[in-house]
């Protein structure tokens, strides 16, 4: 059997499912809220702090800059959207298997790899569209409220976020393929996401090989003191991680199709 037989048909079904079930809308709303919220909150932060402090207390608050807004944007895009993606994709395989939908698909000339990859493509496109919308809108707001952020570093930050979020989707699909329920898959994926976010901070070589090597350096990136070819290894490492997760998910589906 071709390792990807049925991919086109399966990807078409998954994409239609994304549209019909409103997954695109939910993701776009979460991404936009997170991105724009971070920029606007950064702009109004000095005023908020002043209001909360009361009239008798003077707090010295440095003036917020476009760099601060971009750093806040990157931090927020790495959190709520990641959780939303886990929620949206945790049942992708486990629930289809539990309901019997997977049995009808996988008893046809379809490879397990194509079945998993089709789901990844659909969720990956949701990430791409949501992130693009949030990035464009937030870039505009940064320019409006502060001054335009440098395009190159901003693109690199978003590329790091894209790879990070694709890793989250791949980890969630692996958990969904390996476990019997969507809820259990969501729990394991959450642990995976936390590990992916936190562990590289303890060991530099790992950090340099995972997307946190880019998303954790947003202040240096935004300030123009880091970037370029140094960002290649973390981005490639992140894509390799996603690929490994997808291969393992395909093996899990092949071993226990339905």
């Amino acid at each position: 059997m071709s390792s990807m037989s049925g991919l086109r048909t399966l990807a078409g079904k998954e994409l239609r499912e994304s549209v019909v079930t409103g997954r695109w809308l939910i993701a776009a709303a979460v991404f936009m809220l997170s991105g724009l919220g971070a920029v606007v909150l950064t702009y109004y932060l000095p005023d908020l702090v002043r209001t909360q402090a009361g009239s008798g207390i003077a707090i010295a608050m440095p003036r917020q800059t476009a760099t601060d807004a971009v750093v806040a944007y990157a931090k927020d895009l790495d959190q709520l959207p990641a959780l939303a993606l886990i929620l949206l994709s945790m049942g992708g395989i486990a629930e289809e298997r539990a309901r019997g939908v997977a049995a009808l698909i996988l008893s046809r000339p379809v490879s397990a790899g194509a079945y998993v990859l089709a789901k990844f493509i659909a969720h990956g496109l949701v990430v791409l569209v949501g992130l693009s919308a949030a990035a464009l809108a937030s870039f505009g707001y940064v320019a409006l409220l502060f001054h335009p952020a440098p395009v190159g570093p901003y693109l690199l930050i978003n590329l790091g976020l894209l790879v990070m979020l694709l890793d989250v989707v791949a980890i969630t699909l692996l958990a969904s393929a390996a476990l019997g329920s969507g809820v259990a898959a969501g729990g394991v994926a959450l642990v995976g996401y936390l590990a992916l976010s936190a562990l590289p901070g303890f060991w530099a070589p790992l950090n340099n090989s995972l997307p946190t090597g880019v998303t954790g350096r947003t202040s240096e990136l935004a300030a123009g003191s880091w970037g370029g070819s140094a960002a290649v290894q973390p981005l490639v490492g992140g894509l390799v991680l996603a690929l490994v997760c997808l291969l393992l998910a395909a093996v899990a589906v092949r071993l226990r199709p339905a």
Partner: protein
Amino acid sequence: MIAAPVEFFHLAKSYGRLQALRDLTLTIPAGAVLGLLGPNGAGKTTAIRILATLGRPSSGQVTVAGKSASADPDAVRRLLGYVPQEIAFPNWMSGRSYLRFAAALSGVEAKDRGARVESTLELVGLTEAGDRRTQTYSGGMRQRLGIAQALVHEPALLVLDEPVAALDPIGRSEVLELIRGIQGKVTVLLSSHLLDDVDRACDQVAILSQGKLLAHDSTTSIKERYGGPVFHVEVRGGAASLAQRISGEAWVEHALADGGRLTVVVKDPARAELELPLAIAASGLPLLLYRRDLPSLEEVFLRLVSSSAQAA
């Protein structure tokens, strides 16, 4: 596609210590409709899942038209239409769009897909409901769509795991009618608990118990071989005295009276044919009906499974 023969060859499957299938060897000729019977846990679903390429055997193999389900699953999947015990479709899809999807996955060419989908919808009586979302379908409609998705690519083998269990009598009758309609064109393997339905729809029967094949033959032969004949007698007045009179005879297995009716299951049909009319005449009761029948499939099933359990 031409109907394909199926061969289970020394098939075994164990889950840890539990042996779900033991040395199952069984041949289903091309075009036959075989009913697979067995109590819960007999190994029916395990055998079917291995045949449908959704499970792997611990040893042995299953072939469809000579292709091995474990070594060449893709080739078997192209020949196979499968209706699982619990059937579900993506809720957001209509019956028609699901059939298009199933046909595309099975490699039906785009130019033929529309016509194939429409003819299959017509076959299962879902043409008018084809554009409704599957979540609005009744249990019977879902079951019929399940059969449609298994037939849309014109498979050589149709495998149905408990296809009528969740249906009302009308739905059951429709599904059995469908199966009878494709008899000879497709090889059918039907697993069911409903023995009357298997009796009506299948020309062959295989009985599994505790993972072992107890019997396999044509429906008529299996009744003759394993059941022995049954005599139905009706007399005017009570038949209890007649039942009592013959119960101790060596040729009688058991005799059951219900008002004027008497059912006699016999061990020795030749002696019964001689002795039973004499016993009726000796009782002096006016005879209204005397008929020799084959036992029902249920009687054969119960007899085989209980003797297998006793032996174990």
